[in-house]
């Protein structure tokens, strides 16, 4: 394999911005012409200009992110199985599809995506929903293929995926519309009844004539009936369902209050004397509905962030037939043990083992690692990863719902729905409050009825309204679901709210070494040689995709590479080239020994088991770099922070003693807390011992196990809270309570931070809710609030809790 690079322009052009995306550009052809940061931006720029969409580059607000096409062929989009599932046809012969797009950022994205009809002939219409990152595309199947449209979107940086949650989204939209209609009708009625009430109150003060008074009372009455029958019906049906099943929840006192107030008001209207409560009734219905709507939105936040992940694997797979021909089948229907073919540029539809072919895979979807990885016969590959360079034959281990990506998604889905014991406790608390409130209402009526029958009604109704425990019932689930949803957005997937509660009580933090505390094996750990050589090495390595080259680039990211590199040749085991007139060789000791058999080797200390890379200039061996399993950069600082917060740390490794001790000591683990050469069973046993030792009280300190491998899975399962880190094996992810897709230990600090903050928000919410209700009870029983004031106060308490949950800083993007 041989590659050649032109002189690297990085150093000269650092201040010029990419004409397409606005990021710093790397290459300029001439000073006045367009400059680009990458070839993808250049392609997109050229595409827009040839189709008369150059105006895009005149916008002041542009995406500000480089175009990152996936490079997929999207041929599966044209397949029948895909079309029958996602594409609908209308009578005029046009086809419609919903595509979930990656990389939608801003206003100019709307402009660009909706001009796809100009880019691809045959596309009738493209409409974007910015918030959902979803485009509805209509095209003429006779004129173009969906795959061509998909490739165009991809080239512009908006990698499309079929939108899978179609039915769910439709259901949700119907729910949303029904809710909006209820709110709208209730709001219109409430404001008009309120206006009538103003007329009545001012009229009573200013001696309004009896006829007008009667008119307004009857109008309020007439308006309240539809308010209760239409939008207000939800409370009565829900309360009736609760009564029938023998349970008691907050809709019961609401329905009681609404019913009592309406009946009393109706009687007073007909008899022509006494207060009517219609204004309060309508306001209560309206405000409660608004509260419910906001609550539903809040609880949805958790699922929204993960919904987009649903479209990551292709819908079809190429099954290899016994006669070696290929047959396209739906990806879900591929049987375990069968062999499929995956061409270059396609996404893997299943999990499996490579049985034929050598290629490179991009596994960013599962690991977050953007560099491509080489795969060979016998390697395990996963659905959702992208095959970059050559055809692969893969023997299927798991497809559809059993694939790793599907399981991760299922887990996340479950976490959004699972209700933690703390939440249930809050629910029990609420139903107790309801019972107490009903008793108090009866007492209030009994006390006041002796003095003034009308006032007794007033006060009892006010009490029922004001003590509605919705704020209390909202307090915990809302704070938790908000926190879980926000955590998912920063790459921390939490299974249940109880996990957050446990994590807020620090105990033992048990950490696996490889992959958790350390990075992998292509990190530069030592450099013996002249620093001036760095730019020379970077110049040669910049064109290479080898992991070692990537290691050099990562380690010396701040160093500019030499400009005059020519004729770079990559040969097995090393790389050679000419930089600034010097012949450079970089490679393994064996490569050096074969190229320069007579060179003199400097006296270097031994490599400590790391992988050495030797550098020679003009035939003299001058420098050595070693690559190895380096400790994560943020490990020391993160562990120090966690220890300061009260966590005791333990290192539990399956690795050799010497290596574990070196890493452990460097990271400040006490020698007695470092355990090496532990088998999976030993790991689980140690963690179980810690959990036992922590006690079994109501709030025992948390024992958290952090690991990534299959060998940690058992330990993760027995820990109070199991945490599967970045790129972990699916066994550890399946048993873990928290799965993290973020690199490094900083995510652990963020998790601990977020857990403590969430618990603070919950406690604050409960305190708000309780104090509101207590004050409300006192005021209502002493006869200081009218039903109208109560109707305003009650939703205010719910809204306070909703706002406090939303504004509570739990997991913030800044903690990234």
């Amino acid at each position, binding site marked *: 394999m041989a590659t050649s690079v032109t002189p690297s322009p990085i150093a000269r052009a650092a201040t010029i911005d990419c004409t397409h995306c606005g990021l710093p550009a790397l290459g300029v052809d001439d000073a006045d012409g367009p400059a680009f940061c990458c070839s993808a931006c250049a392609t997109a720029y050229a595409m827009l200009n040839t189709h008369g969409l150059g*105006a895009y580059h005149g*916008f002041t607000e542009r995406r500000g992110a480089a175009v990152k096409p996936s490079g997929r062929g999207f041929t599966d989009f044209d397949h029948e199985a895909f079309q029958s599932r996602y594409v609908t046809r209308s009578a005029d012969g046009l086809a419609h599809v919903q595509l979930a797009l990656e990389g939608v950022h801003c*206003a*100019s994205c*709307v*402009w660009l995506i*909706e001009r796809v009809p100009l880019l691809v002939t045959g596309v009738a219409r493209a*409409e*974007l*929903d*910015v*918030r*959902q990152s979803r485009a509805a595309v209509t095209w003429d199947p006779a004129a173009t293929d969906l795959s061509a449209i998909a490739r165009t979107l991809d080239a512009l940086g908006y990698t499309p995926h079929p939108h899978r949650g179609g039915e769910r989204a439709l259901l949700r*939209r119907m729910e*949303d*519309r029904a809710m*909006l*209609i209820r709110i*709208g*009708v209730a709001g*219109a009625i409430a404001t*008009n009844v309120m206006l009538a009430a103003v007329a009545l109150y001012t009229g009573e003060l200013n001696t*309004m*004539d009896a*006829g*007008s008074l009667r*008119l*307004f009372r009857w*109008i309020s009455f007439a*308006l309240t009936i539809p308010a209760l029958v239409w939008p207000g019906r939800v409370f009565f049906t829900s309360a009736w369902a609760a009564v029938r099943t023998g349970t008691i929840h907050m809709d019961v006192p609401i329905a009681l209050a609404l019913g009592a107030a309406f009946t009393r008001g109706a009687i007073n209207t007909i008899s022509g004397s006494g207060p009517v409560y219609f204004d309060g009734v309508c306001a209560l219905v309206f405000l409660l509905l608004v509260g419910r709507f906001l609550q539903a939105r809040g609880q949805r936040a958790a699922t929204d962030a993960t919904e987009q992940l649903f479209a990551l694997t292709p819908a079809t797979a190429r099954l290899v037939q016994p006669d070696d021909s290929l047959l396209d089948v739906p990806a879900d229907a591929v049987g375990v043990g069968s062999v499929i073919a995956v061409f270059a540029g396609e996404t893997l539809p299943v999990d499996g083992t490579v049985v034929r072919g050598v290629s490179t895979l991009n596994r960013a979807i599962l690991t977050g690692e953007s560099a491509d990885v080489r795969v060979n016969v016998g390697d395990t590959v996963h659905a959702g990863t992208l095959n970059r360079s050559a055809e692969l034959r893969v023997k299927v281990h798991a497809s559809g719902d059993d694939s790793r990506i599907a399981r991760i998604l299922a887990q996340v889905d479950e976490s959004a729905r699972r209700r933690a014991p703390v939440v249930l406790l809050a629910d029990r608390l609420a139903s107790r409050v309801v019972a107490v409130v009903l008793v108090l209402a009866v007492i209030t009526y009994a006390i006041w009825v002796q003095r003034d029958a009308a006032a007794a009604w007033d006060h009892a109704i006010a009490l029922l309204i004001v003590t509605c425990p919705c704020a209390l019932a909202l307090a915990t689930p809302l704070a938790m679901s908000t926190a879980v949803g926000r955590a998912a957005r920063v790459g921390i997937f939490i299974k249940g709210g109880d996990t957050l509660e446990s994590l807020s009580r620090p105990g033992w933090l048990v950490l696996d070494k490889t992959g958790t505390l350390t990075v992998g094996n292509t990190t530069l750990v030592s450099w013996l040689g002249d620093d001036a050589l760095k730019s020379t090495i970077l110049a040669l390595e910049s064109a290479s995709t080898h992991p070692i080259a990537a290691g050099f680039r990562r380690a010396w990211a701040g160093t500019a590479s030499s400009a005059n590199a020519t004729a770079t040749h990559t040969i097995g085991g090393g790389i050679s080239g000419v930089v600034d007139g010097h012949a450079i060789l970089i490679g393994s000791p064996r490569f050096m020994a074969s190229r320069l058999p007579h060179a003199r080797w400097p006296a270097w200390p031994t490599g400590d088991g790391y992988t050495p890379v030797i550098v020679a200039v003009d035939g003299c061996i001058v420098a050595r770099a070693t690559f190895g399993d380096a400790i994560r950069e943020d490990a020391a600082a993160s562990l120090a922070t966690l220890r300061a917060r009260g966590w005791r740390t333990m290192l539990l490794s399956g690795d050799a003693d010497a290596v574990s001790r070196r890493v452990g000591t460097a990271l400040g683990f006490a020698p007695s807390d470092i355990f090496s050469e532990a088998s999976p069973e030993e790991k689980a046993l140690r963690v179980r011992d810690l959990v036992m030792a922590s006690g079994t009280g109501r709030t025992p300190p948390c024992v958290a196990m952090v690991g990534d491998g299959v060998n940690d899975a058992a330990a993760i399962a027995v820990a109070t809270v199991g945490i599967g880190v970045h790129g972990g094996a699916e066994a550890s992810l399946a048993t873990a309570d928290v799965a993290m897709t973020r690199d490094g230990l900083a995510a652990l600090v963020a998790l601990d931070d977020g857990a403590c903050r969430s618990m603070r928000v919950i406690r604050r919410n409960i305190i708000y809710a309780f104090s509101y209700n207590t004050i409300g009870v006192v005021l209502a029983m002493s006869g200081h609030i009218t039903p109208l004031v109560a109707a305003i106060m009650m939703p205010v308490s719910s809204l306070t809790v909703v706002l406090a949950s939303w504004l509570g800083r739990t997991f913030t993007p800044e903690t990234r």
Partner: protein
Amino acid sequence: MSVLYLVVPLALLLVAAGVGAYLWAVKNGQMDDLETPGIRVIRDEQ
């Protein structure tokens, strides 16, 4: 004050018309996406 008997029902009719328009809007999906159309209109100069 007899004018009230004419004006108040008239006002209610107006409210009914408003609610009707709102129902039409919701059912037509006008409230489904409140973000994109606002952005779209700015860039629609061509």
